[in-house]
C-alpha cells in the first residue's frame, strides 16, 4: 500500500526565478485609449479570464478585449499569493489555464522543458504527478506558464487597465462601463474571481491580504483555511507567538480544497443530478475551509512547544484592537488580529441589473449548458459564481477549464465564427 506522508519541505519553492522570457515579448496597451467596441469583453484577466481568452482564440474569436483593474494578466492573483508567502499551489499539474485539445503546451510539459531551473523537490513533484500521485505545483512555475499562455494567445496586448463599473444591456448589445470609458460589446464574460469575505461590522483588525505590522510580537488569526495557515507559518517564522481561532472543534487538513471527485465528470454529474436544495447541501459540506496536509507537522510542533495556541470550537463574538472575545466567554489577546474568513464569489451583483443576476441563496441564475445568465444569454460567468452549476470545484482552476469550454463554444457558435482550427463537437449543439 502506498502511504501518503505530508512533508513540509514541499511547501518551499523558490520564487522570482529568471525564467526565459519570450524572444519576442508582447507589449501591453499601456497608455492607449480603451477600445470603444469589441465582439467579446472579458471582465477580469486572472486565470479564468486567461483561460477564456485562450479558448476563444482557438475557436477563431479574435475580437476580444480584456478589462482588468490591474491591467496585467494574472497579476492580482499572484500578488495575493505572494503577499501570503505562498510558494506552491495545491492544484494538480493538470489544472491550468492552458487550452485543451489544441496541442498547446501543458503545464507539466512546460515545467519539464525547464528542468534545469527546478529544485530537486520540484522535480520530485513532477514525477509524483506523472505517476498519478497527489502533487503540488510551484507558484513560480505556474506564474511563468501563465505569462507564456498570455503571450502566445495575445492576451497581454489585449488587456486594458480599467475598473468595470457596470454592464448595461441595450437593445443591440451590451455596454461595459468603466472608469476609463465605455465599450460596446456583443458578449460579456465575467471572470471576476472572488473578493475577501469582510469581517462583521464593528470587528476591528487586519485582513489576510494586508501586511502584519512589523512591531507585532503576537498575532491572533481568525479563520481555518489555507490563508490562515500561511499567516501562522509566516508569523512563527518571524518569531511571533500565535493564537489561532478555529470555529470548528478541530482544524481540517486535506490535499485539495474540495473532494477530488468534483474535479471529474462523475463528480459533476452527481452534482447535476441533485435538486437545488441538494446542491446547497453539497456546497456547504464540501466548501469547508481546510489546510494543506503539509502544514500539519509544522503547526502541531508549534502547538506542542507553546509557540502556537489553538482555540478550537468557539465562534468569535467580537474583535477589538488586540483582543478577540469568543462566544464561550474567553478573550484571546495579541498585538494584532488578522481575519482570514475566506472569500465570497463575485456573481455579477453591482455590475449587472439585479433582474439579470436573479440571485437565489447568493447564487446567480445560469443556463447549465452555456453558463450564460438565463435572463440575458449575452452575459456569461466563469469561476466561483458557477458553483451551483459545476459543483464546488467551479472556483478552482480545473473548474475554469470546464466552464471555459462551455462559454467559449457558445460564444463561437453565436458569433458564427468558423475557425481554421479544430472545434469542439458541442459547438454545433449550441448554435
Amino acid at each position, binding site marked *: 500500500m502506498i502511504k501518503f506522508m505530508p*512533508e513540509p519541505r514541499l511547501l518551499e519553492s523558490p520564487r522570482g526565478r529568471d525564467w526565459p522570457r519570450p*524572444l*519576442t515579448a508582447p507589449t501591453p496597451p499601456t497608455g492607449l485609449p480603451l477600445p470603444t467596441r469589441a465582439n467579446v469583453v472579458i471582465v477580469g484577466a486572472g486565470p479564468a479570464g486567461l483561460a477564456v481568452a485562450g479558448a476563444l482564440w482557438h475557436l477563431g474569436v479574435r475580437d476580444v478585449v480584456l478589462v482588468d483593474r490591474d491591467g496585467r494578466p494574472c497579476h492580482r492573483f499572484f500578488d495575493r499569493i505572494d503577499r501570503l508567502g505562498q510558494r506552491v499551489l495545491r492544484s494538480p499539474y493538470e489544472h491550468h489555464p492552458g487550452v485543451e485539445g489544441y496541442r498547446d503546451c501543458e503545464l507539466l510539459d512546460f515545467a519539464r*522543458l525547464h528542468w534545469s531551473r527546478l529544485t530537486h523537490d520540484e*522535480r520530485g513533484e513532477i514525477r509524483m504527478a506523472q505517476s498519478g500521485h497527489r502533487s503540488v505545483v510551484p507558484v513560480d512555475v505556474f506564474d511563468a506558464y501563465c505569462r*507564456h499562455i498570455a503571450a*502566445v494567445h495575445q492576451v497581454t496586448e489585449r488587456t486594458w487597465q480599467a475598473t468595470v463599473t457596470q454592464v448595461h444591456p441595450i437593445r443591440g448589445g451590451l455596454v461595459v462601463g468603466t472608469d476609463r470609458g465605455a465599450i460596446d460589446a456583443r458578449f460579456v464574460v465575467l471572470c471576476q474571481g472572488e473578493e475577501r469575505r469582510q469581517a462583521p461590522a464593528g470587528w476591528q483588525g487586519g485582513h489576510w491580504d494586508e501586511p502584519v505590522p512589523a512591531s507585532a510580537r503576537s498575532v491572533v488569526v481568525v479563520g481555518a483555511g489555507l490563508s490562515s495557515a500561511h499567516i501562522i507559518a509566516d508569523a512563527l517564522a518571524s518569531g511571533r507567538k500565535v493564537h489561532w481561532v478555529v470555529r470548528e472543534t478541530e482544524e481540517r487538513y486535506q490535499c485539495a480544497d474540495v473532494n477530488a471527485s468534483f474535479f471529474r465528470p462523475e463528480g459533476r454529474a452527481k452534482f447535476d443530478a441533485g435538486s437545488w436544495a441538494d446542491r446547497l447541501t453539497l456546497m456547504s459540506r464540501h466548501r469547508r475551509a481546510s489546510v494543506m496536509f503539509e502544514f500539519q507537522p509544522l503547526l502541531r510542533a508549534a502547538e506542542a512547544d507553546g509557540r502556537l495556541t489553538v482555540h478550537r470550537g468557539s465562534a468569535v463574538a467580537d474583535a477589538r484592537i488586540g483582543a478577540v472575545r469568543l462566544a464561550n466567554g474567553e478573550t484571546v489577546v495579541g498585538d494584532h488580529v488578522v481575519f482570514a474568513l475566506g472569500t465570497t464569489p463575485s456573481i455579477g451583483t453591482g455590475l449587472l441589473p439585479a433582474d439579470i443576476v436573479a440571485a437565489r441563496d447568493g447564487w446567480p441564475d445560469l443556463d447549465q449548458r452555456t453558463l450564460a445568465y438565463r435572463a440575458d444569454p449575452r452575459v456569461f460567468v466563469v469561476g466561483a459564481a458557477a458553483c451551483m452549476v459545476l459543483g464546488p470545484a467551479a472556483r478552482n482552476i480545473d473548474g475554469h477549464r470546464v466552464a471555459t469550454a462551455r462559454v467559449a463554444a457558445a460564444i463561437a457558435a453565436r458569433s458564427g465564427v468558423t475557425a481554421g482550427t479544430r472545434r469542439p463537437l458541442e459547438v454545433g449543439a449550441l448554435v
Partner: protein
Amino acid sequence: MSDTRFTLPAIDAPASTEAGVMLLGLDPERLLACLAVVTMADDPGQVAMLVDQVRHGGAHLTMPDLVAAGAQRWRAIRSDLADADPNPMVSAAIRQTWDRAYTAIAAELTDVGPACLVYLTACWLRRADIDAVAALPGGEL
C-alpha cells in the same frame, strides 16, 4: 521523515535528457520549426516557447517558413548525424536511447550550441518522420 516508497526515477537526470524525451513526442513539423530557430537561444525550452508563439500567429514568423528552413537545415546536417551515430540503437528504454544518441552526436558535432544539440538529437531519433516531412514540397525552400 521521508517515505522511501516514493523514490522517484531520474530526478537528477540532465535537463537535456528530460527536455529531450519530451520533445520526442512533438510532431515532426514542430521539431523542424525548432531546428530553424535553434540558434536564437541556448535553452531548448526557450526555443520550444518561441515556436509555440509562431504556431499561434505571433513573433512575426510563420510556421511554413520555419518548417521549410528547418527542413533545409536537416538535409544539410543529416549525413553528419549519420556519421556521428552510425549504429543507432532502437530500444524501449527511451532515456537510454536518448542518452546514447545525445552523447554520440555531442562527441562529433562540437561546434553547435546546447539547444541545437538537443533538437538535432530529437530529429535524429525521429528521422523517419522528419525525413518524410522534409521531403514534402512544403519542406523545401
